[in-house]
């Protein structure tokens, strides 16, 4: 079972590294949006600091949303998804492997580049640290919840709008607490509450989202 998890994760990572241009898309989107804001709004430190948490978090969220399609689309189109569902291994484990791969390829790069963007937006050091923590806890939730949405819409032609409608409301709590943690850290206040909340949401998503995704995939397959 663990082997199946590992092999599927490795297969997805290998596939992604063989088509690197796709790999860079969410990252480029994230960096571009965040760097455009100072140009469009105001480059003063004061203004940048006020909007930084929100801008960075919204961009990260949209970057993940745009990359969600990749999670099951290709497997659905070439029939590999059927084979995953016919595996003697629990589908939940395989789903978790796919979501892990997705996070490694989209969420993790965003987390790694975030300190640089924090610097662009003139965030003070201690809130950059909080920004990284909040993204580290928040982005896996985005991938996990996104997987439910994708598994429901993968069979729908141009299901992008539908996907956003399903997924965005569920993303809101993560966005609020993630951005708020960074905001609060700038004022020098304790951020433990927000980070603990994000950790709790992550635990919840980790335990429930793969189950929901597996069920949704079976529904999609019985089309």
């Amino acid at each position: 079972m663990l082997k199946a998890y590992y092999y599927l994760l490795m297969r997805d990572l290998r596939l992604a590294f063989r088509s690197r241009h796709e790999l860079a898309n969410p990252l480029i989107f994230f960096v571009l949006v965040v760097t455009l804001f100072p140009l469009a709004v105001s480059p003063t430190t004061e203004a940048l600091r006020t909007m930084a948490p929100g801008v960075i978090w919204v961009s990260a969220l949209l970057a993940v949303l745009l990359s969600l399609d990749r999670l099951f689309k290709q497997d659905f189109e070439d029939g590999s998804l059927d084979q995953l569902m016919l595996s003697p291994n629990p589908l939940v484990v395989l789903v978790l492997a796919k979501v892990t791969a997705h996070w490694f390829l989209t969420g993790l790069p965003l987390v790694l580049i975030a300190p640089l963007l924090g610097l662009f937006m003139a965030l003070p050091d201690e809130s950059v640290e909080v920004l990284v923590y909040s993204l580290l806890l928040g982005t896996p939730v985005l991938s996990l919840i996104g997987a439910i949405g994708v598994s429901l819409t993968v069979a729908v032609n141009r299901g992008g709008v539908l996907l956003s409608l399903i997924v965005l409301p569920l993303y809101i709590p993560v966005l609020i607490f993630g951005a708020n943690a960074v905001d609060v850290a700038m004022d020098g206040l304790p951020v433990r509450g927000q980070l603990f909340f994000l950790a709790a949401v992550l635990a919840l998503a980790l335990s429930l989202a793969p189950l929901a995704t597996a069920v949704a995939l079976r529904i999609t397959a019985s089309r």
Partner: protein
Amino acid sequence: MLEIRALECIRDDRLLFSDLNFSLSAGEVMQVEGPNGCGKTSLLRIVCGLRQPEEGEVLWQGESIRHNREDYYANMVYIGHLPCIKGDLTVLENVRALLDTRSLSIDAKTTEAALARVGLAGFEDVPGKALSSGQRRRILLAFVELAGAKLWILDEPLTALDVQGVALMESMILEHRAAGGSVMFTTHHGMQLDCDMRSIELSAYSHADWQERD
């Protein structure tokens, strides 16, 4: 081994078949026949558990496949219309990826022998996107052979295969049957199987007259 009970399938408000009963025991080969759109693919997808029937159930070793999925899937291999092949992976990696989802660790020698048998010797390191559609289907044949399942469910396995490919598929089915395995397949190409073969005409179960009266 496999038992189908009172199966009914409705697709887009159209009754494809109903009250379909049959069973398949070890060493039996069965062809599902019928015109296009009569529900052959739907039937095979129901039998392998990908699709839920409106009525009835599929039993494996006397138990509903919904309750013993693990055992059933370890003993069943399905290939459908879609190639399941990743263009960015090599032939060898593609077979491995398919086998890995079944948690089968098969040594390199056996894998290469199976690839050689389906005529892909020397293509092991060629990426999937450089292959013809017939060659992609041949990867699936190697996968079916290596999967070591008792029950093969093959939906149009001869698509895109050349004459040698068809002959290969035929001999694979015969060998599988001789080893006590069962096969359920559909095809619109002539398959000359030199053995007892059952066939089921699916359109006979569509109950068209009943449908019209309703």
